[in-house]
């Protein structure tokens, strides 16, 4: 299956992905019209600054139907709604074991980078934060159904976001 992979070392923090995402999920699909729409179109990707790594990176949870993060979570801090398939996160149950990030297809390259750099706390907080925020807003990444490429991937000027074919386990 295809999915977006984040390459944090290439992110310049320009937020082009965020705007492209909001426009792709607007009524008009046009930047100049979208900015006037009510309610304002919502983005599904968020640029987060990771102070420990001194990098910014776009993070987005796709709320995968098969949500590998949910299936590996030993404490059920991550769980999935059966009907909407949205993933939610309960911080009280989390024991910071990081198993989820080793299986998340989007987060894996960042996880590897974090391992190399040896500092991981704040980045994971960002990732989980996104899950919670998206749930609250009732929105999730849909990989831009109906487009050749997700809008964020198309908009990224440095290819920090790429669409990859993921091998099935």
């Amino acid at each position, binding site marked *: 299956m295809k999915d977006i992979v984040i390459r944090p070392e290439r992110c310049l923090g320009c*937020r*082009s992905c965020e*705007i492209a995402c909001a426009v792709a999920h607007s009524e008009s699909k046009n*930047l*100049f019209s979208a900015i*006037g729409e009510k309610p*304002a179109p919502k983005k599904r990707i968020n640029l987060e600054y990771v102070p420990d790594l001194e990098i910014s990176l776009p993070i987005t949870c796709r709320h995968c139907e098969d949500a590998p993060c949910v299936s590996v979570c030993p404490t059920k801090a991550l769980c999935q709604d059966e009907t909407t398939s949205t993933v939610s996160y309960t911080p009280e149950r989390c024991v910071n074991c990081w198993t989820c990030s080793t299986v998340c297809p989007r987060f894996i390259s960042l996880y590897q980078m974090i391992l190399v750099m040896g500092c991981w706390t704040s980045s994971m907080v960002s990732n989980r934060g996104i899950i919670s925020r998206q749930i609250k807003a009732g929105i999730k990444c849909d990989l831009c159904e109906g487009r050749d490429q997700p809008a964020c991937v198309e908009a990224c*000027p440095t290819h920090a976001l790429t669409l990859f074919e993921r091998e099935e386990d």
Partner: protein
Amino acid sequence: MKQEIYEKSIDPATRTMLQKAEEEGIDTAWERYEKQLPQCSFGQLGVCCRNCNMGPCRIDPFGEEADRGICGATADIIVARNLLRSIAAGAAAHSDHARDAVLAFKKMSEGEAVSYRIKDTAKLLSLASEYGISCEGESLEEVATRLADILLLEFGKQEGPILCTRRAPEIRLKLWAELGIEPRGIDREIVECMHRTHMGVDNNAVHILLQGLRTGLSDGWGGSMIATDIQDILFGTPQPRRSTVNLGVLSMDKVNVIVHGHEPVLSEMIVEAAEDPELLELAQEKGAAGINVAGICCTGNETLMRHGTPIAGNFLQQELAVITGAVEAMVVDVQCVMPSLGELTGCYHTKFISTSPKADFPNTLRMEFHEDRAYETAKEIIRTAVENFPNRVPEKVAIPEAKQECIVGFSVEAILNALGGSPDPLIEAIKSGAVRGIGAVVGCNNIKVKHNDSHVNLVRELIKNNVLVVTTGCNAIACAEAGLLLPEASELAGEGLKAVCKALGVPPVLHMGSCVDISRILVLSSALANRLGVDISDLPAAGAAPEWMSEKAVSIGAYVVSSGVFTVLGTVPAVLGSQAVTSLLTEGLNDVIGASFAVESDPFKAADLMLKHIDGKRKALGLTSER
């Protein structure tokens, strides 16, 4: 998302050369544009600020992230400041061009630039009297020196008025004074824009925009107008003449020299040097049948208007001219010259010669131009081109066949002349409804628009509806390439306009010159308004810049609207990130200055907007509707 060649331009010559470029593996602006897509949304909306080093800051247009910069500037402030800087840059370009023309004129009058002389004595004397210079007992050169000194003061003036503004109708001048937007000095307004947009100075969008209007006026009724006047005195006021346009004007057997950029001070000399017997002889020696000078952009328009020198193309055709493989020298001065020409000319035998002390580009042969030895430099340039002729690579040469006849040279003087000396016949035609109104269509090419498509379709639509079109710049070249600058084009016009054109023997689209010559349109509209005893904003007239791209166009937009002319922009300016600035420009200005902008990329809908505006103004003037 690769565009097909037919989607890139409506012009057959352009398509042929794009095909050649593709076959030779050469990238042009179209390929570079594709590599820029999608373009930065913050930039398109104008909400990115780089004016201080705490930034860059940007505002989230969807309201989820930052709604102000580090200093607290909102989208309104950032958008207004960015717009003001664009206006300043555009006004600076036009006005600095004017300064050089006046400096050349002064040197000529003092005998230090012997290559130049006074070509239009009548215009010199009429300007002298306008500026209050008594000519009695003085030689023409002395009058010229005094005029040059007064004009130079216009740039450095502190408290105004800029004297050309006095050509505007009384009622408009009063309005400008009431609004406090009468320009005080050409350089002062531009400097003040830069000051106001510095960190922590002017942070009120409306206040900032008023300075934008004032700076625009210092260009249209200042720098640009001075450039036009002085160039007319030095090189002659344009009169109707025939010429030919498009890439097909390049010659298979002659030395092709292209003059590209904006200032006629050098190109006038090049045109002259190309007729020098010594150089013609050299050309023959090198196996060429002669020397063919052709223009691109407004340098081209200047020599076209005054000498009928052919034009090879407009802005987006500059690279294609080189790709013909038949250009011995691409000679450039300032503005709208793509730096890509450096690498591109390296693929052919073409010499890329930069001449302005202000402007150099990659891989140029530098032949700096100074007025005191103007003709010598021009001769050296032509000699270089001629000597390059034997280096032409025959396998690489392909000149498209397409070229088109045109009639150009409609200065205000020439138009009045065609009308029999007074604007009355035109006013009568407008009153009767034969001419529904006047459309001023100007501006650049923009890669975001299919080349020439919006220009040509908008103008066709206007003349079809009996709107007499005046044009300058790259729109004029687009119209010429489409055959609209011929009396025969009146067949495409509505019945009323057709009859008027036939009676006067003029095309339905009048080429008034280069982009600084939009000042001619201002003078013409002022003359019409004065004759009718109304303001410019009361005239059944509208403007458009269907394919605009440059900062000069932003300045032009500012002064045209401040002069009272409703203007339709064909490409979206970087202001939509601010609701306040957008609504001020498209609506609010109407109550302030009697005109506003509209944005419409569809040329047919743009024509409708203009027609609706024109009809509204006709009704207000109590003129019967045309039928």
